[in-house]
């Protein structure tokens, strides 16, 4: 079925969002030069997804705080969240500069209590349960806030993700949208090879009472089309086909970049590639 074109609130032609994501990736690389290791590839994988949620989907109050809720269930991808929160003025520049430093307040996983962080994550398989509780609470209290959740495909191997997904279907929390960063890599293996029964993901969500759609996870237009799909009385899963390490040629689909900082030469190449985009 051909869907109606989505309403891209900020940047209708898609050029500025692309530049925005290049900027976010470069900022993450900058930070990588002050720490021995950080999760670059998992953040680059979901850069367009998180960008779309923050800059296109979420509603904001006049004071700059969000009306909706964002949970980074794949907590190790939080660098992209940090740089967007920095751009929005919710985190300070000094926060990013003291990332993983003893005098800083940002660690390698999001921490509840940090400005802009709605839930502590890091251990995989926790975000879905909390998101279902939040979505149910919003409905119970007759609030209109939406809950946006970003999961890794690897954490869809956790039983707890499916316990909670089943409850989301039972409770019909249609104010919950889950994006799966479907890059086909868990920490160790390419999942399509190591765990072929993991697929298909869209059908699994549908059979658990969700509406589900697969999109190109590096196209904001496509992500937005999926997220704006009507899904009355069902939660919505947007399965985003992505490339781990997207944007830097030598990082794409290379497992070592799950958790590593580039050396100065690698850094220069990566910055050049992202400059050219």
């Amino acid at each position, binding site marked *: 079925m051909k869907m109606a074109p989505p309403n891209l609130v900020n940047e209708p032609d898609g050029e500025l969002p692309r530049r925005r994501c290049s900027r976010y990736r470069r900022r993450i690389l900058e930070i990588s030069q002050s720490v021995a290791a950080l999760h670059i590839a998992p953040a680059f994988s979901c850069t367009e997804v998180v960008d779309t949620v923050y800059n296109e989907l979420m509603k904001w109050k006049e004071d700059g705080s969000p009306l909706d809720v964002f949970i980074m269930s794949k907590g190790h991808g939080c660098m992209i969240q940090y740089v967007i929160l920095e751009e929005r003025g919710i985190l300070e520049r000094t926060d990013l500069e003291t990332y993983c430093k003893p005098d800083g307040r940002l660690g390698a996983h999001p921490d509840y209590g940090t400005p802009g962080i709605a839930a502590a994550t890091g251990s995989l398989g926790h975000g879905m*349960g*909390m998101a279902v509780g939040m979505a*149910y609470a919003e409905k119970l209290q007759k609030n209109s806030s939406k809950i946006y959740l970003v999961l890794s495909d690897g954490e869809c191997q956790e*039983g*707890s993700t499916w316990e909670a997904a089943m*409850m989301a279907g039972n409770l019909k929390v249609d104010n919950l949208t889950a994006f799966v960063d479907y890059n086909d890599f868990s920490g160790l293996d390419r999942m399509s090879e190591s765990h072929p029964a993991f697929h298909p993901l869209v059908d699994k969500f549908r059979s658990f009472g969700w509406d589900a759609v697969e999109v190109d996870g590096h196209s904001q237009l496509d992500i937005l089309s999926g997220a704006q799909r009507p899904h009355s009385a069902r939660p919505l899963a947007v399965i985003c086909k992505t490339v781990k390490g997207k944007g830097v040629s030598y990082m794409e689909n290379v497992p070592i970049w799950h958790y590593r900082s580039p050396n100065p030469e690698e850094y220069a190449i990566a910055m050049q590639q992202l400059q050219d985009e």
Partner: protein
Amino acid sequence: MRNRFAEVFYSLGCADPRMCIVVADISPAGSIARFRQEFPDRFINTGVAEQVMIGMCAGMALRGLRPFAYTIATFTLYRPFEFVRDDLCYQNLPVTIVGIGGGVTYSTLGATHHAQEDIGIATALPNMSVLAPCDPDEVEAATRWCAQQKSGPVYLRLGKAGEPILTKGADPWQYGKIRYLQRGSDVCILSYGSIMKIAREVASRCEALGKTVSLASVHTVKPLDVASVVDALQRHSNVVVIEETGPVGSLGNSVKALAWEAGARCHIVAFGLKDAFIHCYGNHDELLSAHGLSVDAIMNRLSL
């Protein structure tokens, strides 16, 4: 205990629309069933799925509700342990985890249903408060406190049903404070939870031997009322701890450590469950007895 919890939860829940109960496929007792009928949106059954029971409670608390998770004690703590730790304790959320059948209450169901190390596990968690009322009146006081507190997660350890009232005329219940049910000067018995009925009998037997006996409910196992424990150690020549939990993380071990630090000169004997799975399928008292927790066995070990 279960019924009193249900009655109190019902009355508080009628008045406070933030109160919710999230169960994992356990039949709601008494007034909880009534709560379900009258407020179906605030009674959530996750089915046989304890991880989402805890995860949902965290999410609900993060959005302003006051959820209680409720099921058999082993399934509130052991199955979803990392969710209790990360979602509730790490984020320090005001969620009450109600564990029914703490200790070896479900004696005939085997060790899969025995929360015989729940105190050690729950007290090991940062930010977690652990409340173990000894009778229905303490259940009521503890439940009221849980419903209004904002400080963090609580493990509320209950027995089952039919426990006698043991605290009539005692000092008022206060979170974090030892509560004397009676005061004497020779022996001080510290206990908590439904095994208090054995502690009460031990007190009577000691009195029959001519001793004056203090009996205190340590209903708040964490945070422990350290000052009052030290005071008890200094005021009595014999201190006896009686609890229904294994040795690791037990009150008995804490009391001994405090005695050492305080330089207390009293004699201390601690009674608890053995660090063992016992394949005995008798009633609750019979299983306690197999663990060495009977009035006679305790009296035999006390040299008064």
